[in-house]
């Protein structure tokens, strides 16, 4: 790798859980049986232009539009109301984030504009996001 090349290590993990019949203890879900996790290192397959915004303000009428062409995208709802996320330029907001939750993915070049705004009418939120192009 050359100086100033960007590398990203990311991990998404989840643990499905199931309440016992007595209603007192949570166990790992008996349909899955284990914790689920995947991680990856992105380096050569990405560009090297990283943009990080620690505190972006969004409302239900003021979306942040990141346009297209990203290799990697990360978004976190830091505070405020739920945030909804669109991968098709705002036609459909199909992903939801509540406070404290984050989304991270390697992005395909076919994705349209990435846009996000609050899911609640009259609401406002602070988000943190990162893109690599």
């Amino acid at each position, binding site marked *: 790798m050359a100086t100033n090349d960007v590398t990203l290590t990311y991990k*998404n993990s989840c643990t499905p859980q199931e309440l016992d019949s007595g209603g007192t203890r949570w166990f790992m879900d008996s349909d899955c*049986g284990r914790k*689920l996790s*995947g991680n*990856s290192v992105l380096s050569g397959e990405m560009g090297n232009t990283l943009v*990080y915004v620690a505190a972006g303000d969004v409302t239900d009428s003021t979306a942040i539009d990141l346009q297209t062409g990203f290799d990697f995208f*990360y978004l976190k709802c830091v505070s405020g109301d739920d945030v909804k996320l669109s991968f098709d330029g705002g036609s459909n907001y199909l992903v939801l984030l509540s406070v404290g939750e984050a989304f991270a993915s*390697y992005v395909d070049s076919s994705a349209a504009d990435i846009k996000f705004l609050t899911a609640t009418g009259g609401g406002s939120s602070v988000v943190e996001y990162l893109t690599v192009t």
Partner: protein
Amino acid sequence: MAQDRKIQFSTQVVPKIEFQRAARAGVLEEYDRTQAAYQHNKLHTSVNKTLGGNGYIDVNATQADDSWTSFIAPAADWDSNLSQWEAATDTWDGIITISSSLVQLTSNSNTMAFCYIKNTGTNTVKVTLEYGAGSPTYPMKVKGGASVQFRGNGINTNKIGVIRDSSDSTIEYVIAKT
């Protein structure tokens, strides 16, 4: 039937940048502490920290059928498996092969609460949120060993599809309804 279900989830991102440490002179009387220049990764200077978040979501205690995960639980035994074998959509090892044909994770049309997809193979796969559309887009790519997860916002479980990028791979998944 389960009493109740929930899913805890977390995401972590570590952005790094390649950095060249300059050569350092250091010849002493008795020994040489000179260091040559070398490359290494450090936290990206635009971020200077690791990123991430976590949460949990309540999902429906009674999922539509066994196709809400790709697994048959390790604890399940043959006698207690109530699926009709010829009608079952899940696989014994929980692994779904992804080729050049778009694979719909479940045909059940319920409001989606949460989706997790891991690429258990070595070749990249792509995820669409508009299965059944004439020309679906694939906004998310998942490399071998990586995973992607997201909460739904008015999307149905039968809209999630996966296709290979250039070569076949395999996945495991959870797709839960509200």
